[in-house]
């Protein structure tokens, strides 16, 4: 396809720790199309945030990119490898092409300067000198994310609530009209009503600006609502990726199914929540074969010895890949759960 804006190809990232190398992202590949929203789901520590930071070359000093490419295609330009960018080219790529909304919204704004200075800093760093124009743009964006533009523009971060700061960050992320925005759990730290506002704001921005989003979330319901494509990560591996309907109605990896079963349902009054037993593996000394096998109810001998490959499931239907030896059984089991749900309705 020609409308791919961001193509992550075999990206591997390790952290150097006192105990040895920790593979936080392990040969991850996916394509992000223009206007597409990709949701990355998975437990804490599975490498989602590291992947995002890696794309922006914002990894801490202890992290190393071992392999892989991040091919970015600018508007009307030739594809470039974003990981090879350096110096001022890297500075220009950041924010003007690909921006980011950080996880810790409360902490992502410099406490000692006003919001307007952060807006101006960002614009100036990208060669924009017409501050009147930038101010007008910022105020328009603040209005779009449902903030009181004039008050927020002149405020210090501590004068804004958590939800307001989160929306300031979202507005700031599209200030320079980037093609891709990476969102790291944009709704985690805010209450349920603010969550709703933020989701609506993101949908509006996506519709009106035509940006592509990579959306990290623990919250499957939000992923279901926002995403076109969903990708599951486990212990640094991308284990399943597919369209949102395929992933939620016909999951083919035992881990994805486990995540889905762990979500409370309105209709399910019959049983307690099924959490996934055990905890994520030690990533320095990972289990052999499929890394999920010690926690998996479908696991057999082959899962302990052979690493499953990401394989295409529907040859002619909607896009769907999974890396599971027992994807057929998982799908059957998923059908049963869904049928139960329908019966309960």
């Amino acid at each position, binding site marked *: 396809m020609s409308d791919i804006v961001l193509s992550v190809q075999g990206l591997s990232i390790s952290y150097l720790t006192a105990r040895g190398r920790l593979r936080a992202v392990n040969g991850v590949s996916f394509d992000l199309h223009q206007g597409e929203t990709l949701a990355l789901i998975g437990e804490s520590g599975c490498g989602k945030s590291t992947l995002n930071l890696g794309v*922006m070359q*914002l990894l801490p000093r202890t992290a190393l990119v071992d392999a892989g490419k991040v091919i970015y295609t600018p508007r009307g330009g030739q594809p470039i490898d974003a990981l090879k960018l350096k110096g001022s080219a*890297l*500075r*220009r*790529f*950041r*924010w*003007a092409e690909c*921006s*980011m909304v*950080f*996880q*810790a919204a409360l*902490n*992502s*704004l*410099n*406490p*000692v*300067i*006003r919001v307007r*200075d*952060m807006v101006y*800093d*960002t614009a100036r*760093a*990208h060669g924009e000198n017409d501050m009147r124009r930038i101010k007008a743009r910022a105020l328009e964006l603040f*209005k779009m994310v*449902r*903030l*009181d533009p004039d*008050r927020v523009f002149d405020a*210090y971060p*501590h*004068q804004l*609530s958590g939800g*307001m700061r989160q929306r300031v*960050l979202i507005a*700031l992320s599209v200030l320079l009209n980037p093609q891709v925005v990476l969102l790291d759990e944009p709704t985690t730290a805010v209450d349920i009503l603010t969550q709703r*506002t933020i989701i609506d704001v993101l949908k509006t921005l996506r519709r009106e600006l035509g940006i592509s989003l990579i959306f990290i979330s623990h919250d499957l319901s939000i992923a279901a609502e926002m995403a076109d494509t969903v990708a599951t990560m486990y212990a640094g591996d991308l284990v399943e990726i597919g369209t949102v309907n395929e992933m939620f109605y016909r999951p083919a990896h035992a881990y994805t199914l486990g995540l889905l079963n762990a979500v409370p349902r309105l209709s399910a009054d019959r049983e307690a929540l099924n959490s996934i037993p055990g905890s994520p593996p030690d990533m320095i000394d990972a289990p052999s074969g499929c890394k999920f096998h010690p926690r998996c109810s479908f696991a057999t001998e082959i899962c302990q010895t052979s690493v499953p490959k990401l394989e295409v499931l529907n040859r002619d239907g909607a896009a769907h890949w999974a890396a599971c030896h027992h994807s057929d059984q998982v799908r059957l089991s998923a059908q049963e759960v869904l049928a139960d749900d329908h019966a309960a309705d």
Partner: protein
Amino acid sequence: MTVSSSPLASDSPRGLRGTLRRIIRSYAFRVIAQGLFTIWAVTTFTFILIRQMPGNPIQIRISQIIQAQNVTYEEALAQAAGLFDFDPNAPLIVQYVDYVSKVVRGDLGESITSAGTPVLGQIMRFLPWTLFSIGLGLLFSFTIGILVGIAMAYWRGSLFDNVMTIIASITFSIPNYLIALLIILVLGVQLQLFSVGQLRGAVDTDIPPGFTPEYIGSLLEHAFLPVVTYISATVGGWMLTMKSSTLSTLGEEYVTAARARGLRSWRILTAYVGRNAMLPLVTQLAVSIGFVIGGSVIIEVIFVYPGLGGLLSAAIANRDYTTMQGVFLIIAFAVVVANTLADVLYGILDPRIRIGEEKRTR
């Protein structure tokens, strides 16, 4: 649904009572009130201390007068009372009120040992030199410490960082009077880089005062050794504190966010890292001013520099209690002023401190 229900705009107080309340709640008022309270407490404390000291200074003075001038006790007492500028037989509370009311009017009494010399005049003669040398020392030490500290944090683990950490730890752990003695011994006596004798005093008395290069040069030359001592005794502390403060700031999300926004490194260094990392040091600066003034007593004696420290040590040696009282008061006053300035500076650097005021003014 615009979020405009601002808590800031509500309950704006009106009228005279409102204005009064606003003043009382304001940041500046709080700072000044705290400062005045501290000065009052020190004044009271010195007053009590002088009267509780073993060997009542008045009695000592009286017996000195009796011995020296061969007069009766009553005459000596009258003389001593004249020197002390208060009636030692009056009730303590009357003495206290008398003393405080004089201090408020700027009258610190007269020196006991050299009669007829007002203490305030003495202090005003010596204070500028102390302020000059300490101010210069702290200014350099703070600036150098902050710049080197940031550099150490940016290049942590490098040779520069390691060497600087060692230097800082060593200089910071040597007491300032030892550094002063080492400077005289090594640079002055052994290497003969300067003549110790010539650098006595604050300035070369042969040069006429004025804004001439010679005079200013001589001022700096004479202040050089004390200033170098102050710098080397404190700069290590600034370097190490600034390094650790910068390191923790570098880990903050807003610094990563600033990098993600593609900001130039210089802007990130100054407005995002430097300014936040400096905040804890500003408070420390105020505290250290007190310490340095206290420490200057010995340094000024060692270098024979005519500052407040020299005056105080002479007063202590001669049991000149009024002068001691005055010097203590001035030191306390200087520390309070420095603290207030640091508080105001902190308020400028960190908007979160100004909350109380901001709420009212917006």
